[in-house]
């Protein structure tokens, strides 16, 4: 539908402002609000610019209300942006929604997408007709979904009898049956257990490998992102906080590592002092949570092996863990700092 040079997604200075009627609590204020037509405006997304190439896999993260869903809804043509330019697969989504839809797969994980109470197999059959999926493509995507997501045991059960996780799996399968050029997955692993989450990730990876699907994934489970995305977009209160590779993100925002040390026996003051003197030249800080638990925050310049060796030498260590290099910890810290008053 578009030339090869056309990016999968192009957003320039994108913004979305909602208008809501003011509501007041209390009977009399409520009554007064009834007669007024006051409304308030609320900017969900502000000045968002980014570009996603074909075949890329992008993780869109941010806290609740950061504007993830609004962004996805604009990219898929459900919402009309208030300002800025937007193109998905070379078309303006809301203007050519149907043309785009033929090449797009969508999952909204937070809301049940069950329109009817029929077995999933029948929904899949309807989708095959809807997208006019060629037999060979359908055979592949269908079999892949049924096997990978283990749908076989409940594919003929009316959906009202399925668990949330089972429905979610059916939804995901349904959204990718037509091997779309781009897939928007808004929290596709919500409410799934660890093993199933793994299956979902494998399914996404397989679909990408086979069809070069561009994936935009929003999630609260950062393991989804670690497993499937190379690139991260971090949103905070409607603005883009970070756009770049996952590694780059980790390097830029990981301020080193934290060593968590559990002690077999309490360390006396002398031992503590000796350890601190030993590492005086390194950029580390010591925090004693309890007499049995020590946290050593190492800056990026500090040598982790040296710090570890020194700790092992001076203290009677029961257990040792390194924390902070993972995406999870970085993002948590990032949210905390973003929230703190400037």
């Amino acid at each position, binding site marked *: 539908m578009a030339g090869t040079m056309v990016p999968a997604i192009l957003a320039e200075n994108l913004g979305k402002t*909602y*208008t809501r009627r003011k509501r007041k609590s209390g009977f009399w204020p409520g009554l007064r609000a009834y007669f007024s037509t006051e409304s308030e405006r609320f900017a*969900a997304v502000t000045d968002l610019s980014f570009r996603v190439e074909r075949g890329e896999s992008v993780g869109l993260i941010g806290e*609740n*209300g950061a504007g993830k*869903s*609004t962004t996805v*809804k604009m990219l*898929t*043509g*459900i*919402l*009309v942006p208030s300002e800025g330019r937007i193109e998905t697969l070379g078309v303006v989504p*809301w203007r050519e*929604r*149907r*043309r785009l*839809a*033929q090449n*797009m797969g*969508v999952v*909204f994980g*937070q*809301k*049940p*997408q069950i*329109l*009817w*109470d*029929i077995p999933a197999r*029948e*929904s899949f*059959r*309807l989708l095959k*007709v*809807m*997208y*006019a999926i060629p037999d060979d493509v359908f055979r592949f995507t269908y079999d892949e979904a049924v096997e990978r997501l283990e749908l076989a045991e409940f594919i003929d059960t*009316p959906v009202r009898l399925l668990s949330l996780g089972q429905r979610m799996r059916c939804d995901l399968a349904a959204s990718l049956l037509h091997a779309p050029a781009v897939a928007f997955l808004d929290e596709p692993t919500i409410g799934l257990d660890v093993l199933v989450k793994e299956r979902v990730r494998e399914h996404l990876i397989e679909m990408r490998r086979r069809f070069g699907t561009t994936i935009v994934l929003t999630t609260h489970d950062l393991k989804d992102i670690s497993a499937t995305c190379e690139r991260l977009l971090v949103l905070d209160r409607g603005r883009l906080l970070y756009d770049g590779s996952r590694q780059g993100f980790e390097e830029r925002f990981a301020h080193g590592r934290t060593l968590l040390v559990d002690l077999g026996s309490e360390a006396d003051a002398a031992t503590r002092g000796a350890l601190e003197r030993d590492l005086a030249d390194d950029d580390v800080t010591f925090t004693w949570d309890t007499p049995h638990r020590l946290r050593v925050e190492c800056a990026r310049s500090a040598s982790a092996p040296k710090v570890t060796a020194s700790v092992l030498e001076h203290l009677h260590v029961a257990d040792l863990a390194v924390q902070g290099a993972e995406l999870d910890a970085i993002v948590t810290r990032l949210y905390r700092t973003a929230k703190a008053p400037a």
Partner: protein
Amino acid sequence: MHALRFYVTLYRTALKSVAEYRVDFAVGIVTAISMQLAALAFYWVIFARTPALGGWSPGQVLLLFGFTAMVLGLSEATLNGIWWLPYYILDGQLDRLLTFPVDSLAFVLLSRPELHSFGNFAAGALSVAVAWHLLSPPWYALLFLPLWIGAGAVIYTGVLVLVGALTFRIVGPWVTHLFTVHQLFNTSRYPISIYPRWLRVLVLYLLPFGAAIFVPADYLRGHGSLWQAVLVPPLAALAVAFAAKTAWDAALRGYQSTGS
């Protein structure tokens, strides 16, 4: 061609889903028939006090009643989904529908047939049969019956969509605005001659339920011309369908989803 195949599959799938609940089906039919009986009961009260209403005999009024019920039944049996729009919006299902490569309005309309419609349709057909027997119009008029009922269903549904497009603005679990349309539609049950001028204009030209019900009925009782009865209903249906589609598209532009 492909689109047609899809919509047929869609409707069949939707029908199968509704048919899952058998008790509801039975209750629905009983309900529909009791609603129609209630309306007939009011005729009974009226015609116990007067031999004719606005120049229409009981048999002629029965014809209006039968047409109205058949149109209602046909619309509910096929294009009933608009009544579910508020729930689709609240549940976020409309968002999902909008990501399908098919016409969202057609999808919504076909997605929820109402099984009790068959009760309405049957009650209407029975009344038309009785009225037909009483009035004995020319035999060939029967050929146009499907056209009239079909056009009526398009007009009724079309007006529901026009008003239903408001749902995008007033997000709430209510179908009251659609119920208003339903009430307006019920004016077709009585001779248009008893209404004041503004109301006649409203139900003949603006929300032209009368075009598909009153105009053919007038012909069948030997007043209006056949040409008028054959041409007016489909033309009105086309106009309403066009207006409804335009309103729907405009409403989607202003759609705010459920936020977040």
